């Protein structure tokens, strides 16, 4: 009889590994339930000054100036949608890299790496709990923000998912590359903080990017997230888009394939480099 060894993994064993990763992260997250409370209320602290700022610019309670750039005077729905999408972007974009950093700090990275599981699967596994938790906390955040500031989606929720799908899949590509950079640099907190802040700002999470000064507009247009945010807002709250909606969808799909390919190639190359250097267990 030919026994199947651990070094000959199957699809079922991969799925079991994925499930184990998700369960571990899930248990770890809910061990500190205050984190979830913080994730719901913390964004409100950043949004509150924008709400009052919007009132300071409004004429008879309407953000007429904002409407000239975005096509809607409902600037709070615009910003709340941006915040929710940014939460999801952060969960995938930076979440995988942060999870690897946590593994390094808790000393389990090297042993996990020696298991016969595809390394990209480990990264994907780390993002699943993040995504589910982000969905729960974002719904809570939207609920409270809606009560305090008002949230008025008028479009079709399901239609708004269409641009989200290629955007999120494309983000996995970036997340793979970023996770590899974290493995190489080991402590990338300053880099992450600054770059995430810049990406968030230039993709237009709190303002329509056509309000940017002309010399900064190319930065926003080079980020695929800009088109994702733009398309979702257009479908849910009827804002005017930067490009015609079908073009934005095509761009998102192209970005999805390019980012996945680039991200996987970068991860494989940098991961090999880390193995050659033998720094996998260091942090």
């Amino acid at each position, binding site marked *: 009889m030919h026994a199947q060894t651990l070094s000959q993994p199957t699809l079922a064993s991969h799925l079991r590994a994925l499930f184990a990763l998700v369960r571990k992260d899930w248990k770890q997250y809910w061990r500190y339930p*205050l984190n979830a409370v*913080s994730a719901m209320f*913390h964004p409100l*602290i*950043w949004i*509150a*000054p*924008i709400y*009052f*700022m*919007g*009132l*300071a*610019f*409004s*004429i008879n309670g309407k*953000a*007429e*100036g*904002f*409407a*000239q*750039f*975005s096509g809607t005077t409902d*600037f709070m729905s615009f*910003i709340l949608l941006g915040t929710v999408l940014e939460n999801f972007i952060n969960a995938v974009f930076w979440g995988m890299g942060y999870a690897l950093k946590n593994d390094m700090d808790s000393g389990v990275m090297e042993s996990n790496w020696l298991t016969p599981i595809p390394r990209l699967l480990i990264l994907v596994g780390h993002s699943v709990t993040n995504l589910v938790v982000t969905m729960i906390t974002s719904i809570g955040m939207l609920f409270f923000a809606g009560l305090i500031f008002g949230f008025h989606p008028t479009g079709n929720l399901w239609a708004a998912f269409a641009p989200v799908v290629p955007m999120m899949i494309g983000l996995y590509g970036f997340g793979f590359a970023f996770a590899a950079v974290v493995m190489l640099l080991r402590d990338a907190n*300053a880099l992450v903080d*600054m770059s995430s*802040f*810049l990406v*968030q*700002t230039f993709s237009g*999470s*709190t*303002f*329509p990017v056509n*309000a*940017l*000064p002309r010399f900064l507009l190319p930065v926003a247009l080079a980020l695929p997230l800009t088109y994702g945010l733009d398309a979702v807002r257009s479908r849910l709250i009827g804002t005017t888009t930067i490009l015609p909606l079908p073009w934005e969808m095509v761009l998102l799909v192209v970005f999805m394939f390019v980012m996945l390919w680039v991200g996987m190639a970068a991860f494989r190359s940098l991961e090999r480099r880390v193995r050659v250097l033998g720094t996998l267990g260091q942090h």
Partner: protein
Amino acid sequence: MSQLSVPSSLGRPGALGGLRATWAVIRREWTIFIRYPSWIISMFIWPIIFPLGYIFTARALSGVDGSGLATFQQNTGLTEYVGYMAVGTMIWMWQNIVLWQVGYALRNEQMRGTLESNWLSPTARFSYLFGASVPQLISVLMLMTVAGLEYALLFGVKFHGSLWLAALVMLAAVPSVYGLGFAFASVVITAKEANAFVFLARGIVMVFCGVTYPLAIQPQWMQDVAAWLPQTYVIHAMRSAALSTDGWAGIARDLGMLLLFGLFWLAAGYALFLWMERRARVTGAIGQY
């Protein structure tokens, strides 16, 4: 037999010994600060990128024809909205940095395992906290200067006010900003993991103190809360000193309030420190983390 002079023992430290201890703490903290170049690089980058989101949102709210901006100017009395946001966010950053760095000064020593042994040395214990604040204040002054230059050069912000009055506002703000930091340090050393306190304190400043908007926009109950927060007066006075031509008249009342708040927070910070010190001796928990 000639009488021998008795040297002052280590157990009876004098004022000079206290000063030397404080100087040693200042030197140590400064050495640690310049040991990490990424901290210095951050000092140049964060003042620029942090207010960007608010500045661009304000630009969008202004509208293509500037109609929103006209309303904002009516509400604030200032024409310079980039400078308005920049001053508010810089003061917020200052308080945030103090909460993390001064507030966690003793906690960091605790984590490094040096707090208990330092505590046993015959020095005034407050010098550990005070000494840690001095290099922090110097780095904040550098940050403010860099930020001012960056806003003037990159965003074309025109600081119509007086540099001396702005410096005076900073000086008047120091006791309340750092007094709060001292109080925080004692709470943190007692509560150990106190990130939530920092989030709460900086969140209150962000929401109530008019970081990006005039206070008159808020509902009355929020204005009443803001009146009890010293950062409200720091932000208002700094905007007036740096961006307007109102001169002394624009900041006199704020300075008075800041001095009162400063007295309160310094006293509260020191009292909390003494309480924490006594409690630590009773419970013996100073070395635990």
